[in-house]
């Protein structure tokens, strides 16, 4: 049983980490792409059009793999964790169901129209498509966190027999635990997108792949997102930590390393549920500490970047652009560390103080079945994540000014009348 549980845990943890590495960038970048696109429509300045295409391409590539990882997650919930689905569908499954419709359904549909509507749609309608994508992307954070916020801090429910019943929709949708996490995640994602833009612009500049104007404007946009995103994420994070001390004393005990409290809690749990696994307190503690440390670094680099790009300068510092390339990795690490703190720190519960992760496992799950499923999905999603980064690196090295031969070479019926085809598709 415990081997099976650990396999299911490992599978979900790995998929969710891979998924979030993709999602953090998608969320941050899509907003910056929409802002750049808006500037192009407003000013008609062609540099914004090139920026929209280049950053938009990186966004869309990353989004593609993000959906893949999302599929692996959604189905795992029902295949491996049917105990949780059956117990808490009203309060966990229901908000996730709304998320699939108001977020994924709308997001994919409007993104398709953005990609293929470059010349087919009127300019403003085309711009509206990317903003609808932004809205639905952020709605997915909101609805996913209603489910996750409930798992961390249950509200508005009633226990009937072997399942939970939603009695107060308002309480579920105004859960403080959810909203404070939503704010933290949104600003964290914004900073992730900003640092990505800064780091990639630094590479473009060093390799001479883009003109000064392109680099300058991208860096300024990235610096704003990185600076304000970091300040707000760190600020909200501090408030959130206070909520954790009140609502989840065990998580906080792991954070400050209070072993006595953890032992006392383990005894209490053993009496209530029999044998249960305590969270690995070292992992929780160091995840939290590294998140905080990286947050401070992001603050420093965010503010520094904003100062260095002020008054139309490309970058007044010579050291900073070199540092920005490795620094773009930091927000990703902080995002993952934050999730480890939140979710591993919630163990051994699936729904805090109501339902253990062991109870959440599918009763019919077998060790062999889970081993196969883990091998399939972790390999598939892990490989695609690496491919995503390899593709992003390749596209960055190619730069924004290449890659407009829309019809592939070798197709005979498409004579290379490039002028006519240049604007046909949004990206290649």
């Amino acid at each position, binding site marked *: 049983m415990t081997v099976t549980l650990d396999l299911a845990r490992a599978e979900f943890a790995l998929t969710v980490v891979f998924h979030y590495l993709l999602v953090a960038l998608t969320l941050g970048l899509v907003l910056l792409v929409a802002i750049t696109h808006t500037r192009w429509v407003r000013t008609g300045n062609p540099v914004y059009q090139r920026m929209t295409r280049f950053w938009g391409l990186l966004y869309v590539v990353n989004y*593609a793999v993000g959906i*893949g990882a999302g599929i692996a997650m959604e189905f795992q919930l029902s295949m491996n964790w049917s105990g949780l689905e*059956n117990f808490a569908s009203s309060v966990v499954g229901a908000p996730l169901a709304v998320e699939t419709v108001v977020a994924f359904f709308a997001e994919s549909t409007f993104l398709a129209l953005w990609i*293929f509507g470059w010349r087919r749609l009127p300019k403003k309608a085309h711009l509206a498509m990317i903003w609808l994508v932004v809205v639905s992307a952020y709605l997915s954070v909101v609805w996913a966190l209603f489910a996750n916020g409930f798992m961390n801090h249950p509200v508005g429910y009633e226990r009937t027999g072997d399942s939970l019943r939603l009695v107060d929709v308002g309480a579920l949708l105004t859960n403080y635990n959810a909203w404070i996490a939503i704010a933290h995640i949104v600003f964290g994602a914004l900073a992730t997108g900003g640092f990505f833009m800064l780091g990639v612009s630094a590479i473009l500049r060093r390799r001479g792949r883009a003109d000064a104007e392109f680099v300058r404007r991208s860096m300024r946009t990235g610096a704003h997102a990185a600076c304000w995103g970091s300040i707000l994420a760190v600020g909200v994070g501090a408030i959130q930590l206070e909520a954790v001390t009140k609502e989840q004393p065990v998580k906080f005990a792991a954070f400050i390393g209070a072993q006595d409290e953890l032992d006392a809690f383990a005894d209490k749990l053993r009496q209530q549920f029999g044998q249960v696994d305590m969270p690995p307190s070292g992992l929780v503690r160091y995840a939290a500490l590294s998140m905080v440390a990286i947050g401070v670094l992001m603050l420093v680099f965010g503010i520094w970047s904003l100062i260095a790009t002020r008054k139309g300068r490309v970058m007044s510092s010579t050291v900073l652009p070199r540092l920005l390339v490795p620094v773009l990795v930091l927000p990703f690490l902080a995002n993952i560390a934050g999730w480890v703190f939140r979710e591993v720190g919630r163990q051994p519960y699936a729904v805090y103080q109501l339902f253990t992760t062991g109870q959440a496992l599918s009763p*019919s799950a077998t060790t062999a*079945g889970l081993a*196969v499923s883990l091998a399939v999905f972790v390999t598939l999603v892990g490989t695609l994540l690496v491919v995503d980064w390899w593709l992003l690196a390749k596209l960055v090295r190619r730069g924004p000014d290449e890659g407009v031969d829309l019809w592939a070479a070798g197709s005979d019926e498409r004579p290379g009348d490039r002028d006519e085809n240049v604007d046909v598709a949004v990206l290649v």
Partner: protein
Amino acid sequence: MGYATLWLFGFGVLLAGYLVLAGLDYGVAIVAPFVARDDGERRLAFNALGPFFLSNEVWLLVAFGVLFGTAPRLGTSILTGTFGMAVVAVAGALLVNVAVQLRSRVRAPRVRRTWDGLIFAGGVAAAFGWGAVITAVIGGLALGPDGHVTGAGTALTAFSVLGGLSMVALLATHGSMFLAARTPAPVASRARRGAIVLSVAAGLLLATTMVTGRLGDYYAGGIERPTFALVVLLLAVVLLKVALWLLTSRRYWAASATTATAVALMPVLLYAGKYPALITPADAGGVAPTLGQLVGEHTALAMITWTAGPVLVAVIAVQAWSWWAFRGRLDRHSPIYY
């Protein structure tokens, strides 16, 4: 009609929508290596799906996401009761989704050929997996006396394997008909020839599945209305024949719509044959859960209905408009991305 009934049938509709729309993607993925011979032609095939691809694929997440929220035990029973086949289906769907979007991002021909291989494998896996899952659910799952799934070992039978193969042939036909309608000459004419062979194969496989299920006693007491189910299945076979006739009289979109109807009949078969006992035991000793046990409770269903419901309808309308806007055959002015 209560929320529960609304969403039980809602899932049927969403599942049909998923199979019809993403079925086009899987069908094109399966036939692309045969009807599109070089990289340029492959791009034509995938960009024929172009503006529809993302919105087709997302029906998978929506159909099952809504199911997990509105009828949680129906969802978990289907997926845990057919575990291995469901893994194949989901992994295949995941692969097609990502691989089609990434295949043209790198120019090296070797890399693109690798992606094309993955797209083909994903298309076959997704079609086979979902076909087998649906057939296994029709046949019945391993259930305990409390109506909960006890395992997935019994789901893999000759019946479900044949059901999976039928779905591969059916979606391949569906994809070919679409390519015949939306791509230019060389690809379209090969797709047309392919559709003729494939639709015959699909008809034969569907009939074989039915006969095997009957003779091998694979759906013992699981089908409430066997005659009705039989009529739906025969109707699907007849529709395939009609589609062929429409194809030879060069009415390509009508032919496409006809195969789409045939695909949509598969979930209809499931519901018409089994409702109200959608999950039934394969062996004596198991007990079928009641409808009330399968669905979620009132407040949660009301929340889903009034938040997701209007958005669902609005987005489907936008998708319908985009089909109208991009209905033309691909030409040199068409947008290309995949």
